[in-house]
């Protein structure tokens, strides 16, 4: 039964396999080019497992030790995850012990895959969802390991490799833009942040941006799309 669920889950994860391998490699190279052993890239991908946060983390690891700032920045960068779970409350409800891993591994890609994928009939759906989540994370760990090892074996100019994160967000932005007719929330996000960046500067604009976004969204309370009961 488990093997059957695994085999059924794998094809759905192939797009994530490609994306995570490349991003993971970029992350591993970036971290090791900053002087860190590749074991750290692997440990971060096993225990943190948050793509964008790990790129941001490289910046934190190359500056001074700042526990409170680390926590706040993690909260800010991952704040969108606070809302992913809302769509999964019923889906994960009867998953038993696997539920903890499902919550831990709810990354952007796993979230969107779980939202858009229905378990095939005659399968244990809990194992099917579990293997989607597990396969996705294993691609991310594998990519980080490859990148970290490449980065430590060869010295080459990795300047600009962090653009992979910018490109990822631009791609997600386009996908969201095309899947939806109400572009107001996306535009609020861009322009509120831009305004806060100009006013507060590069180091202090994330928290004001979040407040401005929450405020504007609350004032303009209009759903982005019809709620999808499957998700």
């Amino acid at each position, binding site marked *: 039964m488990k093997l059957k669920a695994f085999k059924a889950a794998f094809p759905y994860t192939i797009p994530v396999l*490609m*994306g995570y391998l*490349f991003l993971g490699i*970029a992350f591993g190279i970036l971290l090791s080019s900053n*002087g*860190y052993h590749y074991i750290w890239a692997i440990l971060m991908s096993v*225990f*943190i497992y*948050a793509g964008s*946060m790990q790129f941001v983390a490289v910046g*934190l*690891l*190359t500056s001074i*030790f700042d*526990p409170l700032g680390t*926590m706040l920045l*993690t909260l800010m*960068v*991952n*704040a969108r*995850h606070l*809302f992913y*779970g*809302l769509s*999964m*409350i019923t889906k994960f409800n009867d998953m038993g012990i696997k539920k903890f891993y499902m*919550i*831990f591994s709810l990354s952007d890609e796993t979230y969107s895959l779980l939202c858009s994928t229905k378990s095939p009939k005659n399968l244990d759906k809990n194992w099917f969802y579990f293997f989607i989540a597990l396969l996705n994370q294993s691609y991310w760990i594998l990519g980080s390991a490859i990148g970290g090892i490449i980065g430590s074996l060869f010295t080459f*100019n990795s300047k*600009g*490799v962090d*653009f*992979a*994160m*910018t*490109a990822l*967000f*631009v*791609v997600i*932005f386009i996908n*969201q833009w*095309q899947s*939806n007719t109400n572009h107001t*929330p*996306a535009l*609020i*996000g*861009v*322009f509120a*942040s*831009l305004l806060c960046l100009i006013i507060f500067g*590069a180091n202090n604009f*994330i928290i004001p941006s*979040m407040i401005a*976004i*929450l405020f504007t*969204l609350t004032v303009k309370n209009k759903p*982005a*799309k019809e*709620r999808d009961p499957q998700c």
Partner: protein
Amino acid sequence: MLTNSNLIITIIIMATTTFFTRLVPFIIFPSNKETPKYILYLGDVLPYSIIGMLIIYCLKNISLLTFPYGMGEIIAILFVIIVHVWKKNTLLSICGGTILYMFLVQTIFI
């Protein structure tokens, strides 16, 4: 560079905070209770706004007033937009955009 113990503490903070952000909705809104409409609304719209914010976050250190005026970012982002709208291939968009950007900042806009 951080010392190993500071590095481990930083990683633990990032790991627990990330898990916390993913766990919160399951604590606040158990499946046997109804989730408030306002929260469902935020759950719908916030992901769109946050991605917009993260793009700005990625671009926060560009200086438009000094060379190269953010040209590397602008060209590479335009490339990603055009290729992604055209081909709809995530890997091609991200991989191509990153390689183009690395080429630009290493050879032209140094």
